[in-house]
């Protein structure tokens, strides 16, 4: 686990500085984010509160009727622990109104719709509050594609997108995220009793070890097998990363001119900032 162990003081300094600098340079003071009751959004709200001052951070809990009630309790607990503004906007009426038209929709469609409903609320509040939307996707789920494109994956800035789940745990503990939230089983909370690890079929510790060696250290398959990882697991994860790559890219543009956006029209997003 050595490569996944982080210096939490240093990491905190980098990420708090990131949120402060990238928010302020756009000319705004505030951030808004969804607070699910889980650890990822809890860590981001702690980072944002430290970076911008808790009075400049707006956390919104957006439960659906099937969400575990404990999630909302935990979201409130986290918001209170770091002193940010907190509100609850249930998404049941909007989501149900839509699925009344499609009563046969499966869990995946429903889950995606909920994630995108929450996204529209966050971006509406971005305009309402002059606040940037903070992303809460971690590196593990971004690499596995375990998230909804234009849903929970949508944001203006993501402070934790380069942290594996096991690193999220370390930093959350160091920053004082309430223990109930750090210690509970990670869940997308789309339906009762759902847990990430059960749905994915492996533990975060296992997959982080593999991803770290595969992605960060660029070990070959042979080298990965030599470290004792099962070849089938390597194959499964490699395919997940490959097949979800579209979620990590801008939409593909058909090239017809000399300067196509993002291909030969290249500027940093912080252009002029």
């Amino acid at each position, binding site marked *: 686990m*050595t*490569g996944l*162990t*982080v*210096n939490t003081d*240093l*990491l905190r*300094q*980098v990420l708090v*500085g*990131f949120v402060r*600098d*990238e928010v302020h*340079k756009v000319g705004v003071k505030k951030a808004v984010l969804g607070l699910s009751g889980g650890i990822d959004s809890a860590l981001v709200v702690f980072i944002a509160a430290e970076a911008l001052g808790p009075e400049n951070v707006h956390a919104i809990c957006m439960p659906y009727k099937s969400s575990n009630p404990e999630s909302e309790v935990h979201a409130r607990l986290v918001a209170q622990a770091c002193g940010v503004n907190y509100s609850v906007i249930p998404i049941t009426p909007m989501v149900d109104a839509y699925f009344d038209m499609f009563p046969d929709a499966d869990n995946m469609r429903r889950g995606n719709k909920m994630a995108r409903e929450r996204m529209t609320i966050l971006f509406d509040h971005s305009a309402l509050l002059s606040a940037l939307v903070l992303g809460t996707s971690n590196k593990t789920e971004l690499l596995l594609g375990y998230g909804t494109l234009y849903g929970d994956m949508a944001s203006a*800035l993501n402070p934790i997108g380069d942290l594996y789940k096991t690193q999220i745990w370390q930093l959350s503990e160091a920053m004082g995220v309430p223990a109930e939230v750090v210690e509970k089983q990670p869940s997308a909370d789309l339906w009762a009793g759902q847990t990430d690890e059960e749905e994915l079929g492996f533990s975060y510790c296992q997959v982080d070890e593999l991803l770290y060696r595969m992605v960060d250290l660029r070990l070959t398959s042979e080298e990965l097998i030599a470290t004792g990882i099962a070849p089938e697991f390597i194959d499964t994860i490699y395919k997940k990363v490959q097949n979800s790559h579209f979620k990590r890219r801008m939409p593909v543009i058909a090239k017809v001119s000399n300067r196509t956006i993002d291909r030969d*029209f*290249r*500027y*940093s*997003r*912080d*252009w*002029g*900032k």
Partner: protein
Amino acid sequence: MDFTAVLAQIKPKLGCVADNLALIEERIQLAIAAKADLVVFPELALTGYFLKDLVPEVALRLDSPEIRRLVELSRQISIVVGFVEETSDYRFFNTALYLEDGAIRHLHRKVYLPTYGLFDEQRYLARGEQFRAFDTKLGRMGMLICEDMWHLSASYILAMDGATTLICLSSSPGRGIAGETLSSANAWQQLTSTTAMFLNCRVLYCNRVGYEDGVNFWGGSEYVAPSGASLKRAMILEEDSVSALVDEGSLRRERIFSPMLRDENLFVTMQELSRIEQERGL
């Protein structure tokens, strides 16, 4: 001679030459007020780092009003600054200037343009082709721009050319969060220290801070004595300024204690490099 150098650890705005010039002028005035002899700015201080297609837009010719303004200010203090230079044949260089007494004393164009990992410089910029030491009223100096220093030959050439002070302008991104400090900071600290020690030279390293598209620049600008000891170091990740008294005595003593540079055999080096050149069919 003894002199005072200020390392101006600034946070440039990406692509905003006028704003950055104002920021640089402000730091120059502070250094003048503090009676410093030399003020050093980071790589691409006038422009910011991840410029991409902005390169031609932010490039300055040596006779531009911005450069002329800095040259003028050098009547009061010596200035080292990084920017994008446009030449008359429309090439664009990552360039460092040494300004002194109202003139450009030396110009260094970055030779080693990193194009790997998060770097993409050679896509946008032309390569420099020289490492030359130069005389200033503060002694004989050599300039390096960031990646240049990761090539041992660059510092070696400058030292063999008589430089006693190596000035490195940097925009080094921070990465690696497992250790005591950022692993890129740790690597640089080893590099500046070892370079100073091997070549019996002092190193003035000036790195920027701030974030561009999520990439942090870690700062940690420092004055490394010829012994390899870091005598002054700026804060990590924060805007800062450090002032270092660069003294001739410690250079002299180091060159007496550890006369590696005196004993360096340029003849052997040249003979072996020539042989390698021939064998490679260059």
